[in-house]
């Protein structure tokens, strides 16, 4: 590496991580002011544990993320299989548009249009509507991840199973899905973090009593910098980093096997 590439890397990563490091450091600051270091303290983490609305919002987010990532993984995997393994079929262009459309669709549009429909059909807003909305926008991301893995998959294994007389359903369950396992895990993790992170769509489709964590954080953040939010952010960043490291470890292990 030349000094140019080394400088570019250091500057780029410094830019990406600087603000996050600042956030983490100040979550341990005893003083509530950003520019004053009042000594090391975990008082904001203590305050976090006593913050009932925040905890209940975190619980709502967790439930939504688990359900939505599960549903999106099933739907996204089926969609990827259809697009990569079924060649031409009638309505393929429409199907492709439906699967990948939500990825490029602006969040405000997804949120607003789903809300208008939920009101139109008289569905009460709450946990269920958030799960529906998150599943809808996460499915395409899962399909991208699973589709990428399907492309790299040796088709002869599936064909061999079919030639030996296995029914399509059996080929899927005993050959294709096990080979896809790492991609399924990555896709599910991606859907989980996307759901956990979403503010805009949830703000439209949630109802009273189903405030998600980002919605709660956002209502606090609008009021300005708050060390308790720094503590909550640090915990979230730690959780997500652990998940990403786990995912890359899983992928690396599969690469060696």
């Amino acid at each position, binding site marked *: *590496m030349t000094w*140019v*590439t*080394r400088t*570019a*890397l250091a500057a*780029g*990563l410094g*830019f*990406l*991580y600087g*603000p*996050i490091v*600042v956030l983490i450091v*100040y979550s341990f600051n005893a003083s509530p*002011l*950003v520019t004053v270091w009042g000594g090391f303290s975990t008082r904001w983490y203590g305050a976090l544990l006593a913050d009932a609305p925040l905890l209940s919002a975190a619980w709502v987010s967790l439930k939504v993320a688990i359900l939505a990532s599960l549903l999106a993984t*099933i*739907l*996204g995997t089926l*969609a990827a299989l*259809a697009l990569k393994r079924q060649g031409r079929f009638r309505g393929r262009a429409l199907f492709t548009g*439906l*699967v990948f459309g*939500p990825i490029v*669709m*602006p*969040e*405000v*549009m*997804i949120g*607003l*249009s*789903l809300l*208008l*429909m939920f009101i139109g059909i008289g569905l009460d807003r709450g946990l269920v509507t958030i799960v*529906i*909305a998150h599943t*809808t926008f996460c*499915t395409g991301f899962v399909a*991208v991840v699973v589709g*990428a893995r399907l*492309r790299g998959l040796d088709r002869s294994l599936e064909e061999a199973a*079919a030639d030996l007389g296995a029914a399509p359903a059996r080929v899927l369950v005993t050959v294709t899905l096990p080979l896809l396992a790492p991609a399924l895990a990555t896709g599910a993790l*991606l859907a989980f973090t996307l759901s956990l*992170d979403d*503010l*805009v769509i949830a703000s*439209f489709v949630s109802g009273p009593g189903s405030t998600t964590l980002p919605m709660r*954080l956002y209502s606090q*953040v*609008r009021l*300005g*910098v708050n060390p308790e939010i720094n503590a909550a*952010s640090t915990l*979230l*960043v730690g959780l*997500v980093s652990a998940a*990403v490291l786990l995912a*890359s470890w899983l992928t690396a292990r599969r690469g060696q096997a």
Partner: protein
Amino acid sequence: MSGRKPVGLFDRLMRLPAFLWLAAFFLLPFAITLKISLSEPATAIPPYLPLLDWRGGLDGWSTFLEALNFDNYRTLYADPLYRDAALGSLTYAGVASLILVALGTPLAYALARAPARWQPLLVALVIVPFWTSFLIRVYAWIAILKPEGLLNLALRRLGLIDAPLTILNTEAAVIVGLVYAYLPFMVLPLYAVMNRLDPALREAAADLGAAPSRVFWTVTVPLSLPGIAAGAGLCFIPMVGEFVIPDLLGGSETLMLGRVLWTEFFSNRDWPLASAVAVLILAIVLGPVVLFRDSLRAGEGEAP
């Protein structure tokens, strides 16, 4: 497909769940939004007119269709607020995209040229912020940019300024936030393309006497254009509809379409107008999607 047993029914059954789900929760809501954008606001529940009377048969349909009009779109066109918001969205997203290309290209190049055994770790380091809460990453900048924040503190300690600069709640803060939040979207597709470039081309240019900077500008950059286009498209598209960044880092005069839609819907409760703004955002976004379709696919590494 050749030589395979007919599996039509099984294939169809596999397509069905995703198809039904997305038709019900993506296509239908979009159609409803389109329809409401052609309606008039009303003080009722739901707050717009006309409502389709299913029992009215054909007559019901025709009165319904006659009552639809383009008034909301005329308002969007005539009212400077919406024109400024549309221009604002395009300008912020455009300027931020250009800065992202300028910052992302050297970073992606450095990643692609790093020793092979370091690359997975370095790529993971670029991905982690992308997975980390968007809201939190934007929020982190408030503590840095505010008048009594870290940046002003540092500048004062260095003796560069006497009075704190106002950065938070200005256009500059919005641009910083956009660039920061979307940098991984720019770098990753660009890295994917640069990583696949044949090193022989670079070496040939170097052997023929080109200086490293010349190799970069005349070989690497032109060959990486699909990645640059994919990254810029991936950033530009969501930035047009961005809400969180202008709301938290911008000032009250920062006009972007996502924020105007939010206000129109949540504060003014004008659903038809909010729907029209949503359709406008989509129309603006669809342009680059169609334009960049091929390079987006190239960035994703997908054979057509």
